[in-house]
């Protein structure tokens, strides 16, 4: 299941914690627009470099990137030291 929300929180000593929930779907939309806009250039680069090998890999970038983004759900990173706290959580 692809992630729906990104929970980000940061706290520094002496300051209030700053955090927000961000709808990941917005990242998906922006990224999709970027990938579609770059697709002609990627296809052209792939055709040019096809014989040398990198061409095939270039075409695989798109499904690989989608796969990585799709499986971000559940990623949880939390660090805390004497002065700072950072939380990144994909839900």
């Amino acid at each position, binding site marked *: 299941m692809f992630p729906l929300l990104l929970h980000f929180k940061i706290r520094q000593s002496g300051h209030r914690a700053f955090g927000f929930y961000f709808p990941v779907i917005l990242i998906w939309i922006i990224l999709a627009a970027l990938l579609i806009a770059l697709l002609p250039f990627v296809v052209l680069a792939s055709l040019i470099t096809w014989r040398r090998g990198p061409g095939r890999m270039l075409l695989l970038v798109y499904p690989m990137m989608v796969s990585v983004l*799709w499986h971000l759900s559940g990623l949880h990173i*939390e*660090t805390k030291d*004497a002065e700072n706290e950072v939380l990144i959580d994909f839900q």
Partner: protein
Amino acid sequence: MNEEKRKVLDLLAQGKITVEEAGKLLSALDDSSAETVTDAGGKRIWKYLRVQVEPGPGSEHGDKVNIRVPMKLIRAGLKFAAFIPQQAQGQVKEALREKGLNIDLAKITPQDLEDLVSNLDDMTVEVDGRDKVRIFCE
């Protein structure tokens, strides 16, 4: 022993729960673990790789780290290793070999990852007698 069972035993050792309560909790955990996902061969399928760093007894105000990475994300990310330039791959391979790891990043397969994870189980390392690093799968 998994994280939840360890916590129950810690609570019992601290006297915060009775033996009967600990027994009930452990039974409940056993029941829930019976619902763990296994593949066709009966091998348990791990969902997350966890890394926890906790300060040791001598450094209560040390760094704390809690990381949970979905295994599917690791498998998806391994495919990007193929994009590492050949020259860099050689350097990385040489650096890993110097550390005693004979791993070719470009040739790591999902099966290699499964084998590594299945042998990982639960690993706890104490660093310099201060921080405790625990790496396990759940």
